[in-house]
């Protein structure tokens, strides 16, 4: 009951948050110095042509009129047309979003499955070469450029060893795309029972997901480690030890009480992966949302860029909301 009231309150605040974000995105484009009409009209445009572009974009209207018409079109789900793909932006995004989600979800899953046990293990065993090696790697991973690491992986596992497919997207060129259900090729292929496509989709996922996991997993590991250390040194674990409970039970107590903080870091991991995916997608020609965003930036394609930023904000808001709700469920001390 308490939970639902809290969830309801937070959900009610979500639209407010999104309106604020839409205002920011809007003013980012309009108020930063530099006039997009010049960019859009091209370097050889006449003054009349620039004026025409400005009128077409509605940039000659007062700023509040522009905002209202922008908000109205966003409410209708119209984000304009990309002049690179000449398709409605919403359609472009719908096509590309699942590919990005597939990448991020796979990397998240792997990071959690590897990072939490590693963090617990290094918190429990604080001596030894392996522990120090893991910590040194954690320090190093923060300094590695993910896009460069991706290229090294391609060189090693595609060019040298030939174990992984090349960076040409989500499927081999000879494999046909499975019928669309979720838009994530690996899932769709599995649902359709198309083993060839499934194998190909998985093979193409390996390198980008490994890259993302290698760079961002230490975040989960370091956080789990420090929280576990704190919990293992706390009074309730000391009491459990004094009471003669077995080590496994002590660890379970500590782990249970570390969970709220771990859930928070998973939300932050998503936030990091969303940014990292943009670069990794570019390297692997993944064809997802991140690559779309890069394309629009390089070509000064405003409509998709604006929509992309808005979509990202919606996703982070939802994920942070889920994290807060999870925290609430896991930590009974939180008062709504």
């Amino acid at each position, binding site marked *: 009951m308490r939970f639902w009231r809290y969830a309801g309150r937070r959900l009610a605040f979500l639209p407010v*948050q999104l309106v*604020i*974000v839409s205002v*920011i995105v809007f003013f*980012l*484009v309009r108020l*930063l*110095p*530099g006039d*997009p009409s010049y*960019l859009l009209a091209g370097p050889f445009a006449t003054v009349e042509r620039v004026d025409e572009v400005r009128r077409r974009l509605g940039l000659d209207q007062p700023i509040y009129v522009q905002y209202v018409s922008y908000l109205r079109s966003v409410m209708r789900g119209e984000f304009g047309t990309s002049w690179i793909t000449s398709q409605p932006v919403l359609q472009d995004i719908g096509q590309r979003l699942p590919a990005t989600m597939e990448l991020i979800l796979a990397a998240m899953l792997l990071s959690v499955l590897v990072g939490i046990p590693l963090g617990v293990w290094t918190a429990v065993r604080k001596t030894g070469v392996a522990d120090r090696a893991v910590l040194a790697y954690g*320090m*190093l991973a*923060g*300094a*590695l*450029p993910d*896009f*460069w690491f991706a*290229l*090294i992986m*391609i*060189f090693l596992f*595609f*060019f*040298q060893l030939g174990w992984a497919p*090349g*960076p040409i997207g989500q499927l081999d060129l000879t494999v046909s795309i499975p019928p669309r259900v979720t838009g994530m090729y690996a899932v769709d292929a599995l649902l359709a029972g198309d083993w060839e496509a499934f194998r190909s989709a998985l093979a193409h996922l390996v390198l980008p997901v490994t890259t993302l996991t290698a760079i961002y997993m230490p975040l989960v590991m370091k956080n789990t480690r420090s929280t576990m250390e704190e919990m293992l040194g706390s009074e309730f674990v000391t009491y459990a030890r004094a009471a003669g409970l077995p080590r496994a039970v002590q660890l379970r107590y500590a782990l249970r009480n570390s969970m709220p903080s771990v859930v928070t870091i998973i939300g932050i991991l998503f*936030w*990091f992966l*969303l*940014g*990292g995916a*943009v*670069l990794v997608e*570019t*390297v692997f020609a993944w064809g997802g949302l991140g690559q779309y*965003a*890069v394309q*629009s*930036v*390089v070509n*000064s394609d*405003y409509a998709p*860029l604006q929509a*992309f*930023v808005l979509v*990202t*904000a919606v996703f*982070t*808001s939802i994920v*942070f909301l889920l994290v807060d709700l999870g925290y609430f469920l896991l930590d009974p001390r939180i008062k709504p």
Partner: protein
Amino acid sequence: MTVRALHAAAAEARNLVRFSRGRPGFLFGLGVVALTIFLAILGPRLAPYGPEEALPGVANLPPNHEHWMGTDISGMDVFSRVIAAPRIDLTIALVSTAAAFAGGVVLGVISGFFAGGHGIWGRLSSTIVRGADIFQAFPVFIFALALVGFRGPSIQNVIVALAFLNIPFFLRLTRGAVLHMRERPFVEAARCMGGSGLRIAFVHVMPNALTPALANLSPTIGFSILLASALSFVGAGVPIPTPEWGSMIAIGAPNMMTGQWWTALFPGLALGLTILGYALVGDGFRYYLDPVNRR
């Protein structure tokens, strides 16, 4: 007065030397920082070949005794470009971090000192924090990409975007320290002497609340170098052929699929070692600036 200041500086330097002994990570970091500054000043002159010069007939040569790191697809000497790059990378990072530091500290002092207060300053304080919250909802790289995208790719716009991006970070650090400091008796003393709110905030509290922001200057510079090179890598930053690590990796990217590893490997190593070095210096200083760890 000057003599005393000199003595104090010398004592501080001696402390720092004593502190860095037996800390290989910190020393390595200091070495990296010194090297990048040295190369930023002299790198383009020390380069054996012109960093933007496409040498005829030597495209894609593997490392050899004439071209220590090989040549890239258009015959530019990779070593020359790697040591010329800190000039642009470090300039972007230093200018943007300095701007973010200044902006973040001022906003942090205002928002921390007047937190919970009434009237216009109190309201300003909560507006600042809320604004930082919303800006930080965007993943860092996407925010940088969007800022540069809306303004058009150029070096100035990369600097502006990175400066903007790092403001909330310094803001939070300073705000936290100010919240702590404003409860101290010396603030009350200043108030009793009739100082105005703004004067107390900036003359008395700010100098005592700079430590966290200062300790994070170095890692932020490293992080800014990473972001700037990532932007250049996707083509939204420093244009080719200006020597810059990220754009060099972009030039080398297609070569990695065909086995010419040297064009992307070396700029990436330089980038990674630089970021690591600045992070280690930051860790060291954070430890050093905490009086508990001094001796």
